[in-house]
């Protein structure tokens, strides 16, 4: 799969996801960041709170009707691509939308208080991981889909808890955020496997 296919798939997918939801995520993220800045919370606690809220938004984006319809589209399964290639293309748009919430929260925080960018790496990574894990729920039904969404939330909560328990310095923040990389990698692989095995017959 070349970059042109990846970009074209991401553009098509982004066009099908709700723009209003993205704007709402930005506004709410900014509001939460500002509220945290006014509260007595430290930056690390605020970042952990934003990480959890961001994960919820990421799961909501990845499970939205538009995302589910896109992931199950016959149009997509008629294209000569492997499951892992489709997974990469389909992960970009929800990932971008998921990252909007923590970035907006960081912007809201930085208007009022001093900001250390390393602290805000964790919420972004949490949102991405939650989004990637929740994507596997788009091709599943009932309790199986709910299980993947719960798993996404647990992964984000685990990373947020780890950041609160670790030392409060830049190196620790970055180290905890980087723990999200293997989680995201395995989540993307799992989504690719799910797409490869999926038979689009669910409308019956």
């Amino acid at each position, binding site marked *: 799969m070349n970059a042109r296919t990846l970009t*074209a798939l991401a553009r098509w997918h982004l066009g099908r996801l709700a723009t209003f939801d993205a704007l709402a995520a930005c506004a709410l993220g900014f509001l939460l960041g500002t509220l945290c800045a006014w509260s007595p919370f430290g930056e690390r606690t605020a970042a952990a709170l934003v990480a959890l809220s961001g994960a919820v938004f990421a799961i909501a984006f990845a499970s939205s009707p538009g995302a589910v319809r896109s992931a199950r589209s*016959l149009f997509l399964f*008629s294209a000569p691509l492997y499951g892992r290639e489709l997974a990469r293309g389909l992960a970009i748009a929800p990932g971008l939308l998921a990252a909007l919430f923590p970035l907006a929260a960081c912007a809201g925080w930085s208007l009022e208080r001093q900001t250390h960018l390393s602290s805000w790496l964790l919420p972004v990574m949490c949102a991405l991981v939650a989004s990637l894990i929740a994507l596997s729920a788009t091709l599943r039904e009932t309790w199986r889909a709910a299980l993947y969404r719960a798993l996404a939330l647990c992964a984000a909560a685990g990373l947020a808890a780890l950041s609160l328990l670790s030392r409060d310095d830049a190196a620790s923040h970055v180290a905890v955020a980087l723990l999200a990389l293997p989680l995201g990698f395995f989540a993307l692989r799992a989504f690719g496997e799910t797409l490869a095995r999926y038979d*689009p*017959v669910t409308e019956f």
Partner: protein
Amino acid sequence: MTVLRIVRANFVRAGEELVAPFDLDLRCGERATHFSADARAAALTARIAAAVVKPTTGSAYVADFDTRLQAAQAKRCVAFVPANESEPGNFARALDFYAAAFDLERGETLRRAGEVTAVLGHGLYARNAALALCHETSLIVLERPAPGVVETLALLRPRAAILCSHVAPGNLETLAGERAVEALR
């Protein structure tokens, strides 16, 4: 040259046999209609032939590519037009994606899609057909096409084999020059 060979392919979901085992052979330039007992079986039959759905047992080969093991290669040789597929979204972006996926120039896909919409119009089925036929293909699979679509596409792509999947009418009737495969359910 055989472009589609289906050997005892069926489809089972949750213990229910949705498509009974069937065989099919189709060569370049041929046309065939497969009749199924209901719309679900008709749709699944078309999707099995188009390498979109993997048969539970048996095999399907498109241009000698096994659709279970070499689905991506098989899909390069098929143009699949679904019947009730939801709108694929922005048509231009969808066409861009297909152009990229099939390694084609954008202008070329636009020209081919334009040929189809010029004869079929701009309805949902025509747009789906235009997307599917934006690349050079040896097999066209149509899921429950409207009357006249097959003849039009046969004129447009005379060398391609065309498979239609339909729900069986009360008495099976075949169109002149076509081979019909009876419903096996």
